[in-house]
């Protein structure tokens, strides 16, 4: 079976800095793959490379076996890659529903939108899934931080993607909210291929099926959560860090 998302030897250089170096990765539906590592390890750059936000210096990306290396972000998104951003990145003046609806794949650009348009139903179900069913008519800017993080994922879900790239979805959340979020992540992993970049180690170790540890742009270790926890190399690398 081909992986939903496959990266081979991805590298990205910024000036003299090698932000991501020779990273390979495979993701299948039903799997939650967590990427951890200290700040500056290249995790966000990796997400940006996979999402097509920036082109790789070398290496390739495949979606369902199709080579999409160098494709622009919107084409990659249309291939079924949904992503959330580390910093909340939404349309603040629009309602929650409008935010999600814009992500619903739709043709017929020129047809008048009516309240019962099918894209509305899709947007609503995506929002319901992240627990925002009651807030659809709120202006996004008025939401709480936690609700905004939910909406980030809701918008990514509205794309009806196969692969979800979640860049620190728990950033800035309290322990209780994180708990609830962990449940959501597990649920999403059942019918998506999820790549999770996250700092909250409790959550990561509780939800991840596989893990990749990055350091200075390269893969330091990879394996099941238990193997990672036991790895001396990872411990060494994280000495002085908050694990």
């Amino acid at each position, binding site marked *: 079976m081909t992986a939903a998302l496959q990266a081979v030897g991805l590298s990205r250089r910024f000036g003299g800095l090698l932000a991501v170096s020779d990273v390979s990765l495979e993701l299948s539906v039903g799997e939650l793959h967590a990427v951890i590592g200290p700040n500056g390890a290249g995790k966000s750059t990796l997400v940006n490379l996979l999402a097509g*936000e920036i082109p790789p210096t070398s290496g390739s990306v495949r979606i369902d076996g199709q080579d999409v290396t160098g494709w622009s972000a*919107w084409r990659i998104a*249309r291939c079924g890659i949904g992503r959330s951003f580390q910093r909340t990145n939404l*349309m603040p003046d629009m309602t929650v529903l*409008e935010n999600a609806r*814009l992500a619903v794949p739709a043709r017929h*650009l020129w047809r008048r939108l009516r309240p019962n348009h099918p894209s509305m139903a899709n947007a609503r179900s995506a929002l319901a899934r992240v627990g925002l069913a009651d807030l659809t008519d709120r202006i996004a800017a008025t939401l709480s931080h936690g609700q905004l993080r939910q909406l980030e994922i809701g918008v990514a879900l509205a*794309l009806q993607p196969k692969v979800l790239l979640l860049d620190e979805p728990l950033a800035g959340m309290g322990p209780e909210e994180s708990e609830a979020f962990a449940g959501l992540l597990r649920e999403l992993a059942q019918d998506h291929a999820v790549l999770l970049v996250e700092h909250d180690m409790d959550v990561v170790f509780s939800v991840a099926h596989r893990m990749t540890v990055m350091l200075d742009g390269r893969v330091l270790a990879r394996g099941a959560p238990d193997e990672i926890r036991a790895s001396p190399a990872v411990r060494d690398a994280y000495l002085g860090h908050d694990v």
Partner: protein
Amino acid sequence: MRCATLRGNLLLAVAALVVACMPFYASPYHMQLASIAMIAAMFALSLQLLVGGAGMVSLAQAAFFGLGAYTVYLLGRTLGRPPSILVSLPASAAVAGIAAALIGPFALRTRGFFFLMTTLAFGQMLFFVFHDTPIGGGADGVFIQRPDLGFALTRASRTPVFLLTDLAVLAAMYAALWWLMHTLFGSVLLGIRANEDRMRAMGHNVTRVKLAAFVIAGALAGIAGHMAALNDAFVNPELLGWHRSAEALLIVLLGGIGALHGPILGAFAYTLIGEFGRSITERQRLVEGLVILAAVLLLRRGLAGLRFAR
């Protein structure tokens, strides 16, 4: 873009009726003034689609306006007789739209400042084409044969007929844009204005949508230019100059960025301010400069922000 509510649209309809009845109570001069304001409104509406729709501040818009006007001239010259308005109006829209489609792909490779500078430069390039080459009849401008409306006009009937024609075209343009902003295209455009990168991550071909908006706006500006040519029967390269684009931006700002009815309010306000300014001083640039300063510093949401918008 905020669209007027039902009540707002009703108010606009009443205003249209007031304008439509002008032949019964107003002098030809005031009818001409209203025509000028309505043409300015069409021009500013086309720009509003870019500025209020996708957040694209273009300084090439006057070039498309001028192209629309010059199309009437070129059509009349080629045919050797006045073209029917049923031919000239679509032709103006098409020529301006095609020019926008040719310039757009270059200009849209840039964003923000670069987009501004690039549209400024391309607009000036078109200006120079009409100013420095014989294509458009030279730097002094040329008379044109007015498009044929399908019936003969007398000297007395010309002004009211043009007034009503301008009103009809303006109303149609407003209705078309109102519809456009209620389609998925409209909401994608607004999404781009709010957050271009996120729209890309949502799978939208942002560049193509922006190009479509650029072309539509160009075509609409061409229609405005066509109406100017019909009213004045005279075209001049200055119509393409970037100062005219800046004036249209002022009208957009005056009316309120992102309010669909804003340009109409702004155009009438701008025309009235101009008339008033002329009556008190010969220093027109002083008046215009101060009005702009006041608008930029004080009127953040424009006239539409004061009234009947959601």
